[in-house]
């Protein structure tokens, strides 16, 4: 679980720099946090801590990039002719 958490965290970090993959990185980061937390609970280790921290950072960065309510509804986009 610790290794899986680390891998998911790294993949989520890579997704952060991709505009379209940010929301996928958000989900992967949260799953990485879950696995990292469960790994730390059962058997605390450096890899578990690393996976948890990596997933946490990735989740925060992906959250900033993915949660962009430039418009609350796409209808507003069309209404004001912005696209």
């Amino acid at each position, binding site marked *: 679980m610790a290794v899986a958490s680390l891998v998911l965290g790294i993949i989520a970090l890579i997704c952060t720099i991709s505009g379209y993959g*940010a929301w996928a990185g958000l989900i992967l980061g949260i799953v990485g*946090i879950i696995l990292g937390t469960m790994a730390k*609970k059962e058997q605390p280790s450096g890899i578990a801590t690393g996976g948890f921290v990596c997933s946490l950072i990735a989740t925060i960065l992906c959250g900033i990039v993915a949660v962009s309510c430039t418009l609350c509804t796409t209808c507003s986009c069309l209404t004001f002719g912005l696209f």
Partner: protein
Amino acid sequence: MFPILNIGPFQIGVYGICCTLGIILACLLALYNGKKSNIDKYNLILCFAAILIDAFLGAKLLYFIIDFEGICNMFEKYGFNFETLSNIIQGGFVFYGGFIGGFIGILIFSKIMKVSPIHFITVIAPGVPLAHSFGRVGCFMAGCCYGIPSEKYGIAFTDSLGAPNGIKLFPVQLLEAALLLIIAIIMQVYISKSKHRHITVYIYLFLYPIIRIFTEQFRYDAERGIYFGLSTSTWISIGIITAGMILLLIDIKKGMPEPVTPESIMPKLFDEDDEYKDKNKYSK
């Protein structure tokens, strides 16, 4: 107002920064409350993850329901491709969808972990209006969820992608942010001082819908959905107040759980047959 932050080659949405900052502060507050309530921090973190996933899904699902026609129009205009789908997924959330989704997340988590949900709900509750307050500031920065035109109290947006630029609009987002912050402070003070800590949830269940119904009167973005003269959020607010009243009545009928007091957990100082219990024994 200030929707995009340019850092070098990167353009970051200020709304995303505000929301993420609000969620981080809410999680830290919940961890602090959890520590005081002797709740395992790892269980609390797992609970956060469950809430985040379900809140994300709930907020997005309600947005799809409210703006189904607009989303269909977008697919018709730009085609059903990954870019259009990604733009729709990244933009547009409805708070109440996230609220209901997050609540369901806590229930699912409690069921899986076989723990009582009320303890988690109690420690997490004060963070909800706090995070929402930051989200509303983000809404103001992005120019969404805008207010009615007002020459006296309005602020004209210049770079908004949602609100009409150049027209003075009432900053209903900032009003709601301030009221939410007040609710968060009231809830946190109550949870710190009171013995019946779970009552803090009722404070939110009654206060926020009232505030939301009040601020809805100053909202001007019709795209949020209007049904029988009231907005979607107003209908949901009425539902939440009703649900809160039913839960409170059930709680009162069942009887409030006895608060934990020092006397209830201290060992008895005297046995029933202890000779010192008879005060008059040595006075004769």
